[in-house]
Each structure stands twice: as C-alpha cells, then as structure tokens.
C-alpha cells in the first residue's frame, strides 16, 4: 500500500479553525471549524457520510519527540 497524501496547503490555518473533516473514503477536506461539534455539522451538510476528523496544530521544521 502506498502512503496516503493529505494536502493541507489550501486550508486556512488559524487558531479558530483547527478542526478539519475529511471525506470518509478519500483525503478530501470537506469542512473546517473552530470546534468538533461545528466541524461535524459542516460535514453533515455535505452529506458524504461519516467524516474522519482531526485537529491540527503548527507545522514547522522542528522535530517532535
């Protein structure tokens, strides 16, 4: 299985939009919001089924340990 690309370069990164919903069968971003409840509401409106959610922080070149 090949690694799965998750392109976040087009999303608006801000503290108020940390939750992201992805389409359940692809890595397409279908919603972004400040809270989990809100991002699930946005995803439900798109009627694509049960979304996969995640919350993003900062991306930098530093290493995490």
């Amino acid at each position, binding site marked *: *299985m*090949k*690694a*799965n*690309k*998750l*392109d*976040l*370069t087009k999303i608006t*990164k801000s*503290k108020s939009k*940390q*939750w992201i919903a*992805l389409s*359940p069968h692809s*890595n397409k971003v279908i919603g972004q919001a400040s*809270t*989990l*409840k809100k991002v*699930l509401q946005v995803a439900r409106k798109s009627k694509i089924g*049960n*979304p*996969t*959610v*995640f*919350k*993003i*922080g*900062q*991306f*930098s*070149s*530093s290493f*995490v*340990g």
Partner: protein
Amino acid sequence: MVFPYRIVKAINDRTYQIYEKTLPWIKVVIFNPNKPRKTLSGLCLADTGADLTFFDTEIGEYLGYVTKEGRLIELTGIGGGVQRAYFFEKVGIRLEDPAEKEKSIEFIDRMGFSKNNFPLSSPQQTGILGTVGFFRNVNVYFSYPEEIKITENTNIN
C-alpha cells in the same frame, strides 16, 4: 489490516514554505461503551513512545464522558512538558479495515481526554495512541514510508 502512512503536506508556520512529512497517522473509531451508538472517526498519531492513549477533550465530551470525573494524570513529554488528561477505564477503539476486507478489531481499555488543548507546537492535536489503550491490544508492524500493518494481539485478550 493495513493502514497507509500519511504524507502530510502543509505550509511551514515559520518559513511559509511547503512542508511535507510522512507520519503514522491512522484512522480509528472512538466510542463510549456506555453509549456505543455515538462514535467518532479520528486521525490519530500511533506513538510507540507514549505510555498512555488520550484524545482531545472535545472528543470525550462529544462521546458523552463527563471528562472531569475521570482520573487526572500528568503525562510528561521528552522535553519535560506536562500534559494533563482525565482517564477512564472504559473507552473503546474500533479499527476498520481501509480495504474493507477484514473484520474490524475492537477493544475497550483505559484511555483519557486532555484537560486542556494539546501544545500548539504539536502538528497532531486529535489523539495519541500509546501502549495502554492501544499497542497492548494490537500487534503493529511499521513499514516506513508506506504502510502500518495491524492485527489483534491475542496474548492478553
């Protein structure tokens, strides 16, 4: 079942250049065994260095946990940073085969929900899958940079 590594492509917050990193982020379905109809699919970090498994506080609330009623534990990171989380003896995880061929793997274990937000410097803010709560329930074979193979651990179940 086999999960892909995620190649996360994002804008570097410091340099504003394109940042690409191959990360062991896997999709898990989290549930409250006392309210099993409400589930949440989340992309979490498989972290072999973490002792415990915990998720963002909003996930606990969404699943019906009164997070402050859990046992408060301090988790110390390698840099000395402290993260506090409320732990419960019964939190469920279900792993669904991305290829939809194999039977799901489901287990209930001790897991927690963060007291506060994760450190902003961490790219992953959803959940950390550690030994208790995750790795002791499954056998995991990391084949960087492509796939993560997971089977049920029958040693303790």
